[in-house]
């Protein structure tokens, strides 16, 4: 009786807050979409709340521009982000499991070490990184954008925390008694349990990698290997020769559409994963 009333009120507050927050989030996307449907001279006239009819032309401009191979860029970005997300989550889970489930001599040192490098600002090592990969002959290749994500301390830490809260070691023991090999245990039993964590981190690392500009800008040289953020920077950097804000907005829109699709697909998987995740016992 007593608890019913406040819940009703709280429910209204919750809805109002959510609607305001959603409005804030969507507002900027809306502006982006509206701007992408207007020509540069329309945009010059000032802000409009209604979309224009210029989207197709803008899209055509983006697609036909040979100097900014947008679709090639999207493909590259998909390759890089997809591979990064996959190997990053897999190896992080592997590492986390290795440190969680086994008691070996260097365990504590290894764990402390990873925690220490967790805080390492990435921007700084970039210069050394560039020299290194140049010496290794990986300059202007997609590989240096993918392989280093095997070691992602932050993702590792998330996986480790998740294992702590969701994987009873008794489960592993049980698998051993059933004669399962260690890798098989990991792939068949531990991985499915970690699904929610993997899904969450897969999204995060996919997005992170998709939006990464700093490292690709250092590493990638040739047009056919450029990823989306470099292309957008290139377009903006092409200064007065290509001055068309409508095209730039469209390009940004085109750049985020694939990621939104991937996100929508994966987000369903997350929710399913989380709700089914009664891992305890």
């Amino acid at each position, binding site marked *: 009786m007593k608890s019913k009333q406040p819940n009703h009120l709280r429910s209204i507050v919750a809805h109002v807050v959510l609607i305001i927050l959603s409005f804030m989030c969507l507002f900027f996307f809306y502006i982006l979409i509206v701007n992408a449907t207007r020509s540069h001279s329309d945009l010059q006239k*000032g802000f409009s709340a209604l979309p224009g009819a210029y989207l197709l032309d803008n899209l055509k401009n983006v697609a036909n521009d*040979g*100097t900014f191979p947008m679709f*090639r860029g999207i493909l590259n970005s998909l390759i890089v982000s997809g591979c990064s997300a996959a190997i990053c989550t897999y190896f992080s889970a592997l590492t986390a499991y290795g440190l969680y489930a086994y008691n070996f001599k260097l365990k504590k040192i290894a764990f402390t070490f990873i925690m220490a490098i967790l805080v390492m600002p990435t921007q700084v090592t970039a210069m050394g990184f560039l020299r290194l990969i140049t010496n290794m002959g*990986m300059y202007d290749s997609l590989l240096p954008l993918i392989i280093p994500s095997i070691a992602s301390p932050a993702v590792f830490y998330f996986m480790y925390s998740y294992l702590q809260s969701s994987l009873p070691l008794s489960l592993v023991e049980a698998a051993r008694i059933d004669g399962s*090999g260690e*890798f098989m245990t990991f792939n068949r039993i531990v991985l499915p349990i970690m699904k929610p964590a993997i899904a969450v981190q897969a999204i995060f690392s996919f997005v992170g990698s998709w939006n990464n500009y700093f490292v690709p800008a250092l590493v990638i040289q040739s047009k*056919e290997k450029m990823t989306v953020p470099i292309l957008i920077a290139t377009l903006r950097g092409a*200064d*007065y020769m290509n001055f068309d804000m409508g095209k730039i907005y469209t390009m940004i829109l085109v750049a985020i559409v694939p990621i939104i699709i991937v996100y929508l697909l994966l987000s369903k998987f997350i929710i399913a994963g989380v709700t089914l995740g009664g891992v305890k016992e």
Partner: protein
Amino acid sequence: MKKRVVSALLIAAMAVTAMAGCGSNSGGSGGGNDGGSASGEEGKVINIYSWNDEFRERVEAVYPEVKETSSDGTVTTLNDGTEIHWIINPNQDGVYQQKLDEALMKQADAAADDKIDIFLSETDYVNKYTDKDADAAMPLKDLGIDPEKDLADQYEFTKVTASDTEGVQRGSTWQCCPGLLVYRRDIAKEVFGTDDPEEIGQKVKDWDAMKGTAEELKAKGYFTFSSYADTFRLYGNSIAESWVSPGETVIKVDQKIMDWVKSSKEWLDAGYLDKNVKGQWNDDWNKAMGSASKVFAFLFPAWGIDFTLKPNWDGGDGVWGVTNPPQEYNWGGSYVHACTGTDNAEHVKDIILAVTVNKDNLLKISKDYSDFTNTVSGMQEAAKDDSFSSEFLGGQNAFTYFAPVAENIQIAPLSAYDQGCVELIQNSFSDYLQGKVDYDKAKTNFETAIKERYPDITEIQWPE
């Protein structure tokens, strides 16, 4: 047991693939081209570094050897089978220079077909590459081009700009960027009762006349220029001494720069400039070129009218006109350099001659791309030739105004530090002009910023 072996193999395999990834790749890029062709023989690949497609379009337009360009614009094939590889990096955030510098440092060890053959630079940093000690850009003489004879028809200041401190010319340009005053005819008619370029020209012929004109415009609710940044080039390009003298590490801020600060403050406070427009290349600045804007005039070279003003203008043709600026100035310009160590000297020479020297080619560029090109006699002809008139300017022939400006340009002495100095002094004093910091703080901020940009700078000297 068996399973364990399998999994051990698996991890080994993973490690191997990870390593092999690196290995095979290095093999791919390193082993593909096996080394230098004998000197004297032309290489098969010409590598050109630039920050946009402008130069490629020029080459395609006028270099007769061009056969075709791949659809993505990265490779141009010449008639003899030689390929031009275009390596384009954005100017933004200094990415272009970073990549170019990186490649230049490796130039000596690079395989013949990986060597840079031609690279481009802008006036703001041309000096960094024409520096004699840096030896990145080849003297034109070494290519077999005699600047005295072959480039006699070029504007003198472009030759000076592309030369090192000893006067050895190390680059050449097709483009020449004299600036004009571009004004709104409709506003002119309303305020002055005329839009005749000659009469408006009289009203803006020097800074004193300009001030009176600004007062008239203000009375009718118009701004003379959009922002204080618009006038910077006029002051900044007339400095008496270079920012940093050769061999020194002291920045000497020229009196002209402080004059710019002083008059900008005066103009801003008097309401001759739009307070809401802070600098250039931003949205507010773009909007100031729209039909709803209250800004009377802009200071632009030929490229500015075509690539900045035109796309930002949302009205019909014929509203804008050009006339002489209060002071002759130059803004921009791309220089073509042959890179030291090129293995395609003959082709490079041909390209430079075709794009930057051949008068017919230059006139063609002027006609097709509205570029003001680097030929004194050609531009004089264009000034008299009505086929060069512009629809956008209401049938006015802008070359009539450009040509005399170009002939009177005194290029300011350059240094390798110009780009940073020009950018940072505007940034630092922008805060002062907007009333965010006081004058001395702006000075300190400039000192901090410039030392960050150029660690070798030891001292900053201010005039007075």
